[in-house]
């Protein structure tokens, strides 16, 4: 099954490129402390050192003389962490709600879907801003906010899948064999919704990274963590003096999000 999947996946060139980029970003994130033993916040050179001016700081320095390339490497950690954890959290909210709604139908479905729609009708970015502002910006509040605004599509997807799976004969067989609803949902239904969920999740990670970046850009990032969005946000005011401060993190976000989208589609 796995080999089969690989074969299909590797035939999609975009997906392979996406995977290569993502693996690279993950490696950079993991190895950041080894490649750049010093903190990315450390002021290492004069401010606004242009890129390629000194071999030691190939991408230059920012307004406080901090090494841009080191910031990018540590930023990868934050972006990936936020992307993954918030997506997992969103799945943990969305899957149970979608599964219960789809499996039981009726008023349970109605109630849960109205609840879901309530979240869907609020513009997600606006809601995320409000949530982060209320709880004070920190990595936890950002992850929570992103999870809270991202779960409704999961719930809808899972509900749809469960609805179609619920009438499958093997589910009926499970009912006849006396399994409880919970067992049936967990063992018969949900495992078969995994493929579309994985696809959705990879796109959600991309969206989460964008959301985190946007929040950081607006100054609502965790002030103690170097993230790509923070770097762009901080560079925004000096964009005319120091284009590279916004450009390189921008490219990093673009590539990572693009990679995740390519993988999701592959």
């Amino acid at each position, binding site marked *: 099954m796995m080999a089969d999947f690989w074969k299909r996946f590797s035939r999609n060139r975009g997906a392979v490129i996406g995977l290569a980029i993502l693996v690279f970003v993950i490696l950079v994130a993991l190895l950041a402390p080894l490649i750049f033993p010093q903190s990315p916040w450390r002021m290492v050179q004069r401010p606004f050192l242009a890129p390629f001016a000194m071999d030691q700081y190939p991408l230059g320095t920012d307004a406080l003389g901090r090494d841009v390339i080191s910031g990018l490497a540590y930023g990868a950690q934050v972006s990936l962490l936020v992307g993954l954890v918030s997506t997992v959290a969103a799945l943990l909210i969305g899957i149970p709600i979608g599964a219960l709604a789809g499996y039981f139908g009726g008023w349970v479905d109605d109630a849960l879907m109205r609840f879901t729609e309530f979240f869907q009708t609020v513009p997600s970015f606006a809601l995320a801003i409000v949530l982060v502002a209320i709880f004070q910006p920190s990595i936890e509040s950002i992850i929570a906010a992103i999870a809270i605004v991202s779960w409704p599509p999961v719930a809808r997807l899972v509900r749809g899948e469960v609805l179609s799976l619920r009438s499958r004969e093997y589910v009926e067989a499970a009912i006849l064999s*006396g399994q409880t609803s919970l067992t049936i949902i967990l063992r018969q239904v949900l495992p078969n919704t995994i493929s579309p969920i994985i696809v959705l999740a990879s796109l959600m990670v991309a969206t989460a990274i964008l959301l985190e970046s946007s929040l950081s850009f607006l100054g609502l990032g965790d002030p103690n963590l170097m993230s790509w969005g923070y770097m762009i946000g901080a560079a925004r005011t000096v964009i005319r003096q120091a284009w590279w401060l916004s450009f390189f993190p921008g490219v990093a976000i673009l590539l990572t999000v693009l990679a995740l989208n390519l993988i999701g589609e592959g």
Partner: protein
Amino acid sequence: MTDPVLSIRNLKIALPEGADRDFAVNDITYDLYAGEILCIVGESGSGKSMSANAAMGLLPDLVRPVGGEILFEGTDLLKLSETEMMDLRGKKIAMIFQEPMSALNPLMRVEDQIAEVFEAHGLLTPKERAARAIELLTEVGIPDPEKAARAYPFQLSGGQRQRVMIAMALALEPRMLIADEPTTALDVTTQAQILELIRNLQEKHGMAVMFITHDFGVVAEIADRVAVMQYGKIVEAGTADEVLDNPQHEYTQKLIAAIPKLAAEASEGMAGKTPILEVEGLNKTYVTGGGLLFSKPRIVHAVNDVNLTLCEGETLGIVGESGSGKSSVGRCLVRLMQPDSGTVKLAGHDMAQLSGEALREARKSIQMIFQDPYASLNPRSKVGRIIAEGPMAHGVSKQEAYARAVKLLELVDLDALAIDRYPHEFSGGQRQRIGIARALALEPRVIIADEAVSALDVSIQAQVLDLLAELKERLNLALIFITHDLRVAAQICDRIAVMQKGKVVEMGPAHAIFNNPQSDYTRTLIEAIPGREKELAAAG
């Protein structure tokens, strides 16, 4: 004899790498003459549709012809360009498919779809096209052709849709008609009508017809000549009579032997046996539509006052065409569906009134075998798990449940090693055996088999039927066998209930039903069974 319309010479079609064999068809040769019906028969995967698809230029992407030629009136179709093929398709060669619904555009009126055929070839004026459409619909025997012309495909029945397809195929008076399993999705009575229509049209227009089917009954009804295919090769070819009455090849013999015989044996009466399942006054209605925008909800009486009795060790057949309510009855019995009224007494307890824990407990005694061997097994569970889940849900330890699963696998003639494999590693027949093992895992008294062999090839079907009969005997099971196939019912059932529109129109011992049907409907059904006359002749 004149020259053949279609002549296939040493055709080889390659499958993509990694398929279970190298060639879809391997070095086949046959001719098709004007005015005859050639049946290509084979089980699924035999490659029986491939040569026709190649002739129409409709092969899937990675499948390509690698050798031989397909001569149509002397031209090699494999060498034609796509444009030349397009001109040929419809005009000289027409094709009808198994599922007319997917071949028709759901958003276009029937007459427009027929007119489109002329339009594609730049023929006739719009007015003439409309008139011709009515003519064609009349010719294919659609009642009220004027009205049908204005209809959308979803407003027609399956048989009517197939007639529309045939009308479209005939529109340009083709020299050759390819019919790929055109009656498989139809009820037996409709099937008989369509077969007759094709036969009549073929004679009237003097067309060459290539008829692809898996059903020897259909072959017996319609074929002039037969070619039997297995694993991409033609194993036997000849006139219909030669092949059916005196098959030479071992495979053909096996296939014909596997066809359930229509003759039902007289079984001993059930008088002395105790009833295990008693159904009284069972009703179930569906309400569809009836939303705010619809004037009136449509009420369908799927199960209408049905009474049944099933004795220990007995097999009761419920037969009927699609929509007769036979499946609804089965599902009401196991409470996958909530009946509106009526009692279902299983060993004295009323299943219809139970709920929660009591229902869970009662269900142990009544289990089900499903139709689709692909949809009825969870693709993400291993076989052992699938079988053991039921007992485990009822408190049997994992170890014991798996031990029992191994025994059950042996019982249904599968290897014990199967418990560690996934369903997709098994063939359709093997999967159905797993489904049976699962149903047996809870040691039920009654098993309901809902079209349990309908999706299987005929040789596999025979094996599974034998297995069921044997298990029933050994485990003293009572069996309710729901099927649309009267041959199958005749072979396995002690008694048969015939259903039509939610009602049981006739019920009695199997041999009585077949030999002396009381209701008109039963008689129509039996007469529509393909190949029946041939069989009677042979018997006579």
